[in-house]
């Protein structure tokens, strides 16, 4: 029953046709929100009295950090859907999300490093969150290279999904162990965990950038999924019609 339902509504064809309806709407709202908040954040918030202007990189760093993990969770859900109900569309999502997840994680790492230079005086610290973000980045790389190494897509999908799920089990473990490692760390003088509460003047544009960034990334994922459909189902007549 459930299977039939899912298959009907999660067919690549339905997806492709629906996406075009919503795509433009999502794209323009999020773009507007993002641009608005970033202009607000960059130009109209006061200088932080400790960090000076360097805090403004937060508007890139925080949304990226936030998304790097959310995207992994999205992949894990899609993978499970694929393995359990054999929904092809779910498999397309997984591989469509992977490079985007890697990209946002990379942005989080780089922007964090850049931010670290003025604030911590160093671009790298074996801090809990940083370490686990780094591990997450390695996981994304592993996922992408695994999928790239197969020419048989069905096989690649199946193996990728298994790996994503194993990795998902692993994420809380990584978090736990890494946290635990640093909390016992005598010299953990700087952590991201105990933040002074943020000034609302900065908070609202931050929330705005997070939402906007989120929407933009969703658009990216939609495009990338569409692309997957074209690659995989290029011989189907309806794809030819569509193009």
């Amino acid at each position, binding site marked *: 029953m459930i299977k039939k339902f899912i298959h009907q509504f999660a067919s690549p064809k339905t997806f492709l046709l629906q996406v075009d309806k919503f795509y433009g709407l999502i794209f323009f709202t999020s773009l507007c929100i993002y641009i608005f908040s970033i202009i607000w954040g960059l130009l109209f918030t006061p200088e932080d009295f400790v960090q000076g202007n360097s805090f403004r990189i937060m508007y890139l760093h925080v949304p990226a950090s936030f998304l790097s993990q959310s995207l992994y969770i999205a992949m894990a859900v899609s993978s499970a859907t694929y393995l359990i109900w054999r929904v092809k569309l779910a498999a397309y999502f997984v591989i469509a999300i992977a490079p985007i997840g890697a990209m946002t994680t990379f942005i989080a790492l780089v922007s964090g490093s850049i931010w670290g230079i003025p604030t911590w005086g160093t671009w790298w610290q074996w801090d809990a969150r940083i370490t686990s973000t780094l591990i997450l980045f390695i996981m994304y790389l592993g996922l992408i290279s695994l999928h790239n190494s197969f020419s048989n897509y069905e096989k690649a999908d199946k193996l990728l999904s*298994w790996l994503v799920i194993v*990795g998902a089990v692993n994420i809380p473990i990584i978090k736990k162990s890494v946290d635990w490692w640093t909390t016992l760390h005598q010299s953990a003088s700087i952590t991201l965990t105990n933040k002074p509460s943020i000034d609302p003047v900065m908070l609202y544009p931050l929330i705005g950038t997070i939402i906007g960034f989120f929407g933009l990334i969703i658009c990216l994922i939609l495009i990338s999924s569409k692309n997957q459909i074209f690659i995989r189902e290029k011989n189907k007549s309806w794809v030819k019609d569509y193009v």
Partner: protein
Amino acid sequence: MEILKVEFLKLRKKTRIWLGPILVFWLIMIAYPLTVELLQDKLQIGFFSVLWIAILISMMLATEDIFTEDYNDGSLEQTIIQESSFSTNIGLKVFIYWFLTGIPVSILSFIFSFGTTQNFGLSLSIFPLALISSYIFLNLFVLGNSLSLNKGSVLGAIVTMPIALPVLIVLGKSITALQFDINFEGFILLLLGSLSIIIVLVPIVVSYIIRAHLE
């Protein structure tokens, strides 16, 4: 238990599979004091870090070919079409590899620890840590290798490393616990707990993955 006999026969003939990793472990442990200009008592500062890395690397090398060869020459297909439980086979195979590499490496760990720290009690505690962690690493690399099967060990390594790093962190922690004599058993139990889950799950997941590969 046919599989035990078969695997032992193969490993007896292809000594590189298990002797190689042991030699590499040995090489790293010898290289460590040679490359640092430290007095004996300072040598132990980085020692355990090198030890865990050496165990990690040697287990990685031990599993490198664990399925590739059978996959390439067609033996895996033969195994699969026989009805007997494939995942049990995998579990046993990992055990044999551990028996031939993990145990010798753990004994060597004890010897090198004692040589470096001159502390018998500490070194004796290293032994179970090495035994358990080598078994965990083996399982993790087996998982990684099954995913990358004929695509080379490196893919396996990338896939496995994120899972292996937390284990390394725990190992590092337990050395501190040992040295300050706080809750060392807790760490052993934690590792044993993880191992017992891994030992059950990995063969099952791997058997699915290999079937998907052969498809």
